[in-house]
């Protein structure tokens, strides 16, 4: 290599030491911003969340069904005493209706007893006709 070529090669380091005093990328490129697609997604998600909140806020309250236990029917009782019936309800908040006197036997009679009872009723009817 000739002398002049060597000298030029040696001067290369001084030449390459020169640097631009600044940042052209920062000066010329637009500022960094959020990309379009994630912002659209975030906007859609926010809108859906807002709509859900509004729906829940203005939705009429619906009573939740509760389990209703099967209750045994209350057997009404009727009291036939007139004196009791004449009593005003002001004295008592509840009216006791006892339909069947307690003295009445409600048991089912046997067949023999039923037949005997039927014969007795027949003889009573015949006796009353004779008397007339």
């Amino acid at each position: 290599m000739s002398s002049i070529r060597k000298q030029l090669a040696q001067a290369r380091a001084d030449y390459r030491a020169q640097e631009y005093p600044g940042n052209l990328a920062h000066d010329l490129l637009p500022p960094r911003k959020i990309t379009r697609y994630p912002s659209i997604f975030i906007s859609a998600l926010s809108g859906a969340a807002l709509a859900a909140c509004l729906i829940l806020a203005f939705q009429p309250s619906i009573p939740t069904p509760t389990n209703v236990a099967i209750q045994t029917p209350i057997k009404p009782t009727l009291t036939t005493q007139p004196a009791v019936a004449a009593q005003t309800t002001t004295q008592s908040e509840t009216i006791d209706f006892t339909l069947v006197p307690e003295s009445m036997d409600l048991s089912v009679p046997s067949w023999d007893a039923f037949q005997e009872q039927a014969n007795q009723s027949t003889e009573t009817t015949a006796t009353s006709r004779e008397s007339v």
Partner: protein
Amino acid sequence: MDALTIDKARRGNRDALSALILANQDVWYRLAVGLLGNSEAARDATQETAMRFLKNIANFNGDSQLRTWSIGIALNVIREHRRQLSLRTPEEYGFIASERRISPSPDHSASLAEHHALLRSLLTDLPDRQREAITLRFFEELSVDDTAAAMNCAPGTIKATVHQALRTLRSKLSKLKGLI
């Protein structure tokens, strides 16, 4: 610079464009300083080069290296600035020209840094085309083909231009005492 970054830059990716600019801004600046001889003008030329680079990166077809392609843009900008500088008044041009000149030291024992400064001073006296060819070949270390592509001429023309430039420099150096 890898092909992926270049491809992203062509598509307008901000990070890729930023990386390419930062990787080349020093190349554009020192080329402008060497060819214009004026740091302020070199800064303006570098900014203009970067703007044109951003504007045309989408059209880069990859038939040459990106660095060579960007140096071609810088050369065109520098030549435009040089024409504008030459249109200035003689007083202004003289002032600018004086920045490029460094008085050669007749001292035979001049330091290496001073010798390099002298060499750069002699370079500024070369014709524009010769100075461009020498700067790209020896300081930017571009190949003959890449230098020809950047200067938009044939490789043979580059060889001849470099040969003429070296002969001129050798002649000027030989005239100075003890600097050959």
